[in-house]
């Protein structure tokens, strides 16, 4: 077949879509903004629930890419136009590519934690994000304070930039709870003498093996406190004072910790909206790519020939992103065969 499919975004969803379509015999053009494939998964150290290394997933996905797939890294897609059933993909250097179908797999970006001024990210050195912690695990195998010391107490703050009307992100980012529990376990395994506290509003342990992770964390001695962080303050020495309400005791609570980890939520990428508006497609009420039907057409958009997969439609975990990529690939195949 001569039909080309454009896949916008080279994270795990995009790679998976491209490799399945390649195996089905299509020419795939895979566009990636950064200078390498892999997307957000490259930033993680180990994945829940099994704690396997993140790079394995990327490597395995990429090994399935066929030669029918031409990969364009360091290339930003600016617009897509449809006419006479064909798509023209315009990129940042002015060139354009033709395709018979398009799959959007542009993914997500993390919430900018400095927007929660009262949490002190960007101001207090020992307030970091969950991604910063993953980088620490990659580099040092354990968390480190700003001055290089080992923290004796770490606090995880769930729901930063999620379920929060003040920053206009009312939705739940789905995976931060299980990530926090996983990271809490990892800290206890690396530093058994360090106390770990998780401050949550609710614990969303929705997936296979996640509830067991919660129990595993408790067995290791992680303390779970139901109460949302109100503010942080820095004391002498760079330690952070955390103020929450212990809602189950109906009393305010404070403690001093050495490191605060903010579980930042998953946000839509602003550039995706630009691509959508060139196609005349809407974003949904959370700012992510709108899908055609939540149950029966979750990888389709309202425009024929434009498909979606992965976290660009909303917060998602890697398993489900990869599955949706495979579903989108099959729907592209079905669409192009009926044309």
């Amino acid at each position, binding site marked *: 077949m001569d039909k080309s499919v454009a896949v916008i975004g080279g994270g795990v969803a995009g790679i998976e879509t491209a490799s399945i379509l390649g195996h089905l015999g299509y020419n795939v053009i895979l566009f990636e903004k950064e200078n390498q494939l892999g997307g957000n998964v490259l930033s993680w150290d180990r994945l829940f629930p099994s704690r396997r290394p993140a790079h394995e997933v990327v490597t395995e996905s990429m090994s399935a890419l066929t030669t029918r797939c031409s990969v364009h890294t360091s290339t930003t897609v600016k617009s897509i136009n449809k006419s006479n059933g064909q798509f023209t993909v315009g990129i940042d250097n002015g060139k354009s590519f033709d395709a018979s179908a398009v799959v959007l797999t542009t993914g997500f970006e993390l919430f900018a934690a*400095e927007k929660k*001024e*009262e949490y*002190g*990210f*960007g*101001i*207090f*050195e020992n307030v970091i994000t969950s991604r910063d912690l993953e980088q620490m695990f990659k580099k040092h195998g354990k968390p480190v304070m700003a001055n290089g010391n080992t923290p004796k107490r770490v606090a995880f703050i769930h729901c930063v930039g999620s379920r929060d009307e003040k920053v206009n992100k009312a939705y739940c980012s789905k995976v931060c709870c299980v990530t926090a529990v996983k990271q809490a376990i990892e800290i206890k395994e690396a530093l058994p003498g360090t106390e770990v506290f998780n401050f949550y509003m609710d614990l969303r342990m929705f997936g296979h093996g996640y509830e067991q992770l919660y129990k595993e964390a408790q067995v290791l001695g992680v303390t779970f406190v139901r109460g949302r962080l109100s*503010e942080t*303050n*820095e*004391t*002498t020495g760079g330690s952070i*004072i955390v103020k929450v309400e212990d809602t189950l005791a109906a009393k305010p609570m404070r403690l001093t910790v050495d490191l605060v980890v903010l579980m930042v939520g998953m946000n839509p990428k602003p550039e995706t909206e630009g691509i959508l508006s060139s196609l005349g497609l809407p974003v949904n009420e959370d700012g992510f790519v709108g899908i055609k039907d939540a149950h029966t057409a979750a990888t389709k958009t309202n425009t024929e020939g434009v498909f979606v997969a992965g976290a660009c439609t909303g917060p998602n975990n890697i398993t489900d992103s990869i599955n949706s990529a495979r579903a989108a690939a099959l729907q592209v195949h079905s669409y192009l065969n009926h044309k």
Partner: protein
Amino acid sequence: MKIDGKRKIWKDYQKEIADDKFYYVRSCIRQNFFPGSEAAFLKILRDVLKKDVYDDSHHTTCSGIGYHTEVVPFETTMTVVGRNFSLMKESGYRNYVPSCVTSFGIYTEILDTWHHLPKVEERIHENLRIATKREFDIPDNLAHTSDIIFKFRNEIAEKAKYKLINKATGKPLKVVDHIGCHYAKMFPAKGVGGAEYPYVLAGMVEAWGGEPIDYPERRHCCGFGFRQYLIKANRGYSISGSKKKFESMEPYKPDFIITNCPGCAYFLDRWQYGLAEMEGKTYGEDGHGIPSLTYEEVAGLVLGFDPWELGLQLHQVPVESLLDKMGVSYDPDQKFKGLNNEDLGKPESPKNLKFYK
């Protein structure tokens, strides 16, 4: 602490502050506790900065104390405020400058209410017309007096006689700041620097050579409130708020506290005396307290005004330790002498708080 992170937030919260032709509205209670402050403000603006400030003796209280104690209904407060605005209209000025932070809070709250509910504003116009036959305009600019001093902090620094530097060591003085709750907590966009890391006083301290200190309970209320202290039975609640702040700032060994609210300056000064006498604990060096100053007093000291003319002798926590650190020249014998060298007598010394006679 990464100061760049704070500077970014300070940049995000900028506000319009008028630069001349101010209509000055005094505080109800400041004159009793810190009599020199408002006079110092006028002196700084008129004599030092050559600005036009209209000091109207016809204006009344904004009734904020009554409103926050729930003895004055909101509609009455709005009408009283309308009358003050009408006086300003009569005087020909358009920039409203209140001296009290609670007033500032009342004015921003009322202007915001009228902005969202124009029918309420209409009713207040009616009320005022019926009661006094007066008409008012919304001010072009509403800024607190600390905003004005903040705006001109560099001009003041240029004319400074003393800097906020410890003369003996050459190091900048460590200054703890306290912003009145009604300044930015209600409407963060109306405060310089926002509500989390306010900059209005920190900026002054930096411009005048000092080092602003951030301490964990910086945002905590001093406990003034109105309900809390008006009735003696509630006062424990109020003093506990200040105590929390003192306990938090003590490890940083600040040289003095700067505040922009009349109630806060009063309480952070007076409650140190209260705690020293009731519990025996002092928070300064060696049995001293931490001097608590208003920003006009600090500006006045920096410009070389006489401390006793600034009214610093009326502080319960003595300021001599600060004056000596800054190298300000003053005459200790003149401390309790009034106009024309009249002997005003001497106050009783506290038992636990070090005092200078």
